[in-house]
């Protein structure tokens, strides 16, 4: 096992981490993978202030092309991982130049180690690779697919933030010696401004758990592509409908099954309409799903129900008293009406009635 990146996870994030670096979109890509990074060859570039590694990169919505120059003659590496995670689960491209030979390997972060994809049963998905050494600096260039389909490569999507690892060694031309310097940051792939998404994803939403006042339910949203496969690492926004519009509950990434979960606590009984929304990406148009859950009244103790039945009785008695007076008045009105017909009855239908006698 190789541990060159091992301590990278323990490093403090560099200042650049606060603002993700952007990988520009360009089509066609003019960068040539030949081991030399020329000025203007890549649409985007920056120099990491911690390690001194100069990174140049560009993507065309299909492949990512990278050239990076380390301030040493030993190994150099770059890693792309899920946001907020450093080595574990990252796609790591690491290599060195030894004489006329250039070694560049497609590896996968496992804990604080990294292992070649091939060694894990995956593939080496580097499409093109080249390297050179000059003036005490090492230049490595490579081109990889944004989404290789390999389980040991991370699928890079436009508009989404990923973590970025950079490390190198001054002199060691191998893949095992601990780095001289390393840093961590983040990056985002610029969207193709001309690309119009056309695919339609299907989004389902349901609530797991018994909807009840003061109890939790788990809102489960499942996002599938038009091919029936789950859309992984997509951001789903959850809302609860309110009188003033959608109340935002939170944003959750879909997992490997295309599922995002969010817990919600009912603050009161009644129906609640929940909405899950996928804002779309460079392929898919936005999708939305909703479900209505009716929270039952809590059976728990309340201020009045358990401790003070007398108060309830008092309220009931008061209301009954008022209603009784109202009823009395209504009866009086009916009697006024009845008295009013008495003379007619005397002359007609009901001779000798009580009203007549009165």
């Amino acid at each position: 096992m190789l541990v060159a990146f091992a301590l990278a996870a323990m490093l403090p994030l560099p200042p650049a981490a606060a603002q993700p670096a952007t990988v520009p979109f360009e089509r066609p890509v003019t960068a040539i993978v030949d081991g030399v990074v020329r000025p203007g060859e890549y649409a985007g570039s920056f120099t990491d202030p911690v390690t001194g590694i100069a990174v140049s990169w560009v993507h065309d919505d299909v492949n990512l092309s990278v050239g990076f120059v380390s301030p040493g003659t030993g190994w150099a590496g770059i890693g792309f991982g899920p946001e907020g995670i450093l080595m574990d689960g990252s796609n790591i491209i690491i290599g060195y130049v030894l004489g006329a030979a250039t070694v560049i390997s497609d590896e996968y972060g496992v804990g604080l180690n990294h292992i070649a994809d091939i060694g894990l049963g995956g593939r080496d998905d580097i499409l093109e690779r080249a390297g050179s050494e000059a003036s005490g600096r090492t230049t490595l260039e490579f081109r990889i697919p944004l989404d290789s389909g390999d389980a040991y490569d991370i699928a890079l999507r436009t508009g989404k933030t990923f973590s970025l690892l950079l490390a190198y060694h001054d002199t060691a031309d191998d893949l095992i010696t601990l780095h001289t310097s390393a840093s961590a940051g983040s990056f985002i792939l610029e969207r193709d401004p001309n690309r119009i998404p056309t695919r339609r994803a299907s989004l389902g939403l349901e609530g797991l758990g018994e909807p009840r006042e003061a109890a939790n339910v788990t809102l489960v949203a499942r996002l599938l592509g038009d091919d029936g496969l789950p859309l992984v690492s997509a951001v789903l926004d959850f809302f609860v409908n309110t009188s003033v519009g959608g109340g935002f509950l939170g944003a959750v990434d879909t997992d490997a099954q295309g599922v995002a979960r969010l817990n919600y606590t009912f603050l009161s009984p009644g129906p609640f309409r929940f909405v899950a929304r996928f804002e779309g990406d460079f392929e898919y148009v936005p999708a939305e799903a909703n479900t209505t859950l009716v929270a039952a009244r809590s059976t728990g103790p309340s201020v009045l129900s358990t401790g003070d039945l007398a108060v309830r009785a008092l309220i009931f008695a008061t209301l009954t008293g008022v209603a009784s007076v109202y009823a009395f008045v209504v009866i009086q009105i009916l009697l006024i009406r009845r008295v009013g017909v008495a003379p007619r009855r005397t002359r007609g239908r009901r001779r000798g009635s009580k009203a007549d006698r009165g």
Partner: protein
Amino acid sequence: MAKIVVTRVEKTVMLPLVRPGRWYWAIVGVLAAIVVWAAYAYTVQLQEGLVVTAMRDRISWGLYVSTFVFFIGISHAGTLVSAILRVTNAEWRKPITRLAEAITVFALIIGASMVIIDLGRPDRLQFIVQFGRIESPILWDFISISFYLTGSLLYLYLPLIPDLATLRDKMPARARFRRWLYTRLAARWQGLPEQRRRLERSLGAMAILIIPVAVSVHTVVSWIFGMTLRVGWHSTILGPYFVVGAIFSGIATLIIVMAAVRKLFHLEGIIKPIHFRNLGLMLLALDIVLLYFTLSEYLTASYPGETQDVAWLTLLGSGQFAPMFWWMVIGGFIVPAVFVAVTKAKSVPAVVIAAILVNIGMWIERYLIVVPTMATPQTPSVIAPYWPSWVEWSILAGAVAAFGLLLLAFCRFFPVISMWEVAEKAPTPLSEPSPIPEPPTAEVVD
């Protein structure tokens, strides 16, 4: 066969029912136009949601709830003038009780509507019944307002019965619909001793009952605020403070409506300066009581110097709400008191102007109860902004117009003066019997 005899009071009171005049229709037209505009604004709110208002998460109660409290307040006019004065057997009340009772009913209807409008989703009104909790002051309010509205309708209807019978018997024959209506509503009233006894008994019961019901309504409205741990609301004085303010604004509204109806329908011979004087003096007394409550409320809040209290009072005294606050104190409380005191309430215009100022001041007072408290942050934060949107202002204008429209519609169909009670005061005809403007040709009385 005999000719219908119409007394001078009956003639004066029934004339607006037959011939309300051009001004009546002009005012109805203006008010109806405002109501239509407000209805349009409400449809916008129904379509877009409450987002078209200025209310947001920080200030979720604004103009609608302020107006709700205001209208519930003026609904106390009927309680005080009709019920309390009836219980104390104040004879001078008789010509103005009907108006007071009508104000109560229509103010309650408009006030309750404001809550439904404030809901944003009126279809959720059923949830109050379906999911309401007895621990919630909102449910208390729903119950007490429902009971008050029911009681007020009964209390408006009971003394109407003898007058409806008069209308049934003396309306022109060609007014078929009205005669049919009055016949249905008059409960076959013939003025029999048994009927009178039952009517007096019902009125006595309702007059006594409606007073605590009315007091409970505005107390419960105050508890909606007072039961929360919010600065400016969580106060034991809030219940009586609301009730006094309610009666205060109720009397002011009654004075304004009396003046308008008196002028519009030429009732100067029945609604006399003495009524304005007596109500003006009551207005002055309540003004002083309310000033005392106001001083007590704000002094108690300011003296301990609690951070939130200071922030709230600063908002009112010298912050963004200061112009409204000082307008309320000076224009709504002090100036009207001076007006009435200096003229000793003998000048009808002075009393009416004082009443108008009082009502403007009381609406502002309701606004200042609701909004500044919600604007005051509970945690360290900035003052929440709020200024009502055009939709809210439109609906407020519509509410006031609808209130006026309901009153005018009432005046068109029912006598605004309790003819039989006024006649009891002067049992003989006030002048030689004379036919009403369009006398029936075939109808006679036995």
